[in-house]
């Protein structure tokens, strides 16, 4: 969730709305999954699986990034609304995944169910806390947040991107390349969306299945908005929503309550957060008006 939140946040910082994390999640997951299935057989040295896992992470990042780059390219070259294209790409990615592991697909395992072969390597569970489902990906998530902070607030490139996001016309005049920044932002955003897929698939699942994302892409949007695009805020809100989500799934297993109720709660949270901006704005505006009127009254 932290990763998909980053996928949304990075693009947002550059003034783009990336709700394609779901599709990037699939692509990243597929790429990493294929590495985890087939790479050990290709004679790549398995040192406790570490090399393969690193390869899987890289493959996932690149695959997700390229998927994000499609929407970015359509945006900068043709001006296609990235919200619609990323949503369409989400559906395309989901069907692509179903095809690849389906009965006619190249990675079908022949078992009678649409699924791939089992992963040869995956992240070890029980990391940090014994007997938990936690894996080393939690460290990756924290590293990713740190990277996000350093990149956007300490590096020149990140600064340029923020300028583009705040005012692309001004950025253009200042000599910042708007298009290449947007493309880079979408690639990085997609890459982190891909990492989300890697971490879900190689931590929590044992093979590629149809619809292996349970709406992580949209969770990311909620997390990023609640965290106000701030790394610390996003980390905390990711934890909040993760608790909500696993609670929702548990409720879904127990009774008639749908796990989807969590989506509704998320939506209310986003709406309230976004609407709260108005209160702030209105307060400032009235204050200005009062200040402007004050001297005349005296």
């Amino acid at each position, binding site marked *: 969730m932290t990763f998909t939140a980053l996928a949304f946040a990075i693009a947002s910082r550059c003034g783009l*709305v990336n*709700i394609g994390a779901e599709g990037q999640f699939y692509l990243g997951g597929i790429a990493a999954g294929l590495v985890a299935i087939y790479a050990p057989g290709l004679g790549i040295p398995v040192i406790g699986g570490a090399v393969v896992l690193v390869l899987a992470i890289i493959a996932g990042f690149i695959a997700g990034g390229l998927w994000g780059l499609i929407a970015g390219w*359509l945006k900068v*070259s*043709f*001006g*296609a*609304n990235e*919200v*619609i*294209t990323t*949503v*369409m*790409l*989400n*559906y*395309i990615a989901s*069907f*692509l995944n*179903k*095809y690849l592991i*389906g009965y*006619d*697909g190249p990675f079908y395992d022949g078992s009678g169910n649409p699924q791939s072969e089992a992963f040869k390597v995956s992240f070890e569970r029980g990391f940090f806390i014994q007997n938990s489902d936690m894996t080393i990906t939690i460290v990756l998530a924290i590293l990713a947040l740190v990277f996000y902070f350093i990149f956007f607030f300490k590096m020149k490139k990140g600064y340029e991107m923020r300028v583009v996001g705040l005012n692309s016309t001004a950025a253009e005049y200042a000599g910042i390349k708007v298009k290449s920044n947007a493309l880079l932002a979408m690639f990085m955003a997609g890459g982190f969306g891909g990492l989300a897929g890697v971490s879900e698939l190689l931590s929590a699942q044992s093979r590629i299945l149809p619809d292996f994302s349970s709406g992580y892409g*949209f969770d990311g*949007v*909620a997390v990023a*908005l609640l965290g106000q695009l701030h790394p610390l805020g996003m980390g905390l809100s990711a934890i909040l929503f993760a608790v909500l989500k696993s609670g929702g799934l548990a409720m879904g297993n127990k009774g*008639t*309550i*749908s796990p*989807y*109720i*969590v*989506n*509704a*709660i*998320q*939506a*209310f949270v*986003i*709406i309230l957060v*976004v*609407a709260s*901006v*108005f209160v702030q*704005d209105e307060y400032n505006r009235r204050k200005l008006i009062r200040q402007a009127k004050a001297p005349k009254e005296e």
Partner: protein
Amino acid sequence: MKQKKGLIIGIIVLVVLLAVGFFAPDNIKNTLASFIAQDLRIALPLAIAAAGLVYEQRSGILNLGAEGMMLTGALFTWIGTSLFGGNPWLGILVGMSSSLIMALLFGFLVITLRSNQTVIGISINILALGLTSTIYRVVQTMNITVNAFPSISDVLSKIPGIGAALTNEVPNGTELALTQIPVIGNFLTTIFSQNIMMYIGIVFIFFLNYVLFKTDLGLKVRAVGEYPKACDTTGINVFKIRYGAVLFSGLLTGFAGGLLVLDIKTFVENVTAGKGFIAVAAVIFGKYTPIGAFGASLVFGGAQAIQYLIQAVGLKAPSDLMNMIPYVVTVVALAGFIGKTHVPAALTVPYTKE
């Protein structure tokens, strides 16, 4: 000029279709006729939703929550229809009122509170997905009967006087008297045997086009989307027009969602599957006019109907790849045709009264 180009394309398509209807061998004729009928059925909900969205976007509001409003309309049409003993007319009214409530929420947030339209649109979708799926789990055990709208031939046959001349009695109902036309009769019958809503819908779309471009109200809507400040000084209430457009569009998106449910006669979670977004794309592809959006919907509907065509001619292709086609076509259409049209200048810009 742009309008004329669309008209020319439309006429060429019609001429080609008629030529096929007259001269092609029977099996090609039948396949094509059922493809067109299928295309129309898929396109109608898209076109209705898109027509509402045209008004909304022309008034300066980009509603990316259309998907969610459609989904809400779909669920409540389904529930409403079964509450009223399968009556589709009352059912779709229930669906429309539910999406009206969503539109009211959306309008309040983006017009009065001036929130970011894109973000609010997305959260409306998440909200709708969450709510409809939750409610669906609760009500899915209900005993549901959904009746479709009456077919055009059933309606025509009931008109006193001319009804008998326009339709034929057949064993299980009625059919259009078009079958009696030589050579092309069956071809036309397959295409025109739609339910009554198809005809009402298409007439309504043309009516909406007329209102938008030939009446005062339409001019006001378009002006508000271009330069709200100027409108305000001439006494047009920007907020009123924008609320009107949002609520009207909410009604129509809910109606479109209802049509989806009444077409397949059941509800499944996330039944809209991106159709709301495709409708938004149809608005852009259709150059922000209701008729243009209808043409765009026919293209997108065709992209979906083509899977049936491919099955009909006996080609084998993985269904998952076939399912991708409408989404791919939408992306391509967005990329290829955008930028050549005039986008309303105040689109997504909230209006603050000074």
